[in-house]
């Protein structure tokens, strides 16, 4: 069968207008009918939990530098293709705006001919986004206070992350 390069879709959505759709990500990397060429689809969904560092959380507001964030998502997916196969398909959508507990903050779907690459590429994408993509969380607490997450310090080069605190 002729080699076919994988496809990549990245976006940032204002979740006050439209919630993220995990199933849309899965459908994107699965394909349809006779065009289905992947045998393994891995779906990662990030959601807002009700606690962090001992505090009760009511919600999180996500601030995103959209052009650079989308570019970083694209570069990270391309790196994953270089590592685990140019034929891998990726769907990465991150939330912007305020989410309540249980709200979906990120959807990462990876399609691959085989499961090992799908798991590894999915893990790579979420870890690199946490370290490199320009996104910031403002946590809203039960006591009415809000606080920006400490986060990971960026390096000048996009491809290194040494000093980080999560």
């Amino acid at each position, binding site marked *: 069968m002729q080699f076919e390069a994988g496809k990549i879709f990245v976006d940032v959505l204002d979740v006050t207008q439209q919630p993220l759709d995990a199933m849309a990500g899965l459908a994107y990397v699965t394909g349809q009918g006779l065009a289905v060429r992947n045998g393994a689809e891995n779906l990662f969904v990030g959601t807002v939990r009700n606690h962090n560092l001992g505090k009760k959380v009511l919600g999180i507001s996500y601030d995103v530098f959209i052009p650079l964030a989308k570019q970083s998502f694209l570069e990270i997916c391309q790196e994953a293709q270089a590592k685990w196969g140019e034929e891998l398909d990726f769907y990465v959508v991150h939330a912007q705006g305020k989410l309540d507990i249980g709200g979906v903050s990120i959807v990462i779907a990876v399609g691959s001919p085989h499961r090992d690459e799908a798991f590894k590429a999915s893990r790579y994408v979420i870890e690199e986004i946490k370290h490199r993509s320009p996104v910031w969380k403002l946590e809203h607490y039960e006591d009415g206070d809000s606080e920006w997450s400490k986060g990971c310090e*960026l*390096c000048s080069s996009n491809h290194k992350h040494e000093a980080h605190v999560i």
Partner: protein
Amino acid sequence: MHITLQTFGAFRQFGQNIRLELSDDAKVADLRSPLIAALAEFGANFDIAGLVGSSRFATETEILEEDAILHNGNLITILPPVSGG
């Protein structure tokens, strides 16, 4: 020359943009001192100098090296430590 700094994350409380005056041969690393001085006037509930020190600067397409040369009128974005996902 003047530089407009676009803010994100914890720097949002200081406004969407901060205008800085710098010498004509200024580089990216030279943004920090005048920025810290400008923000100190506002006051904050965190260590301003510490957060500026752990932040990077970027355009819409790349994170800038510390020795990158700035130009009059540049729009630069400050990136405090990130916490996406």
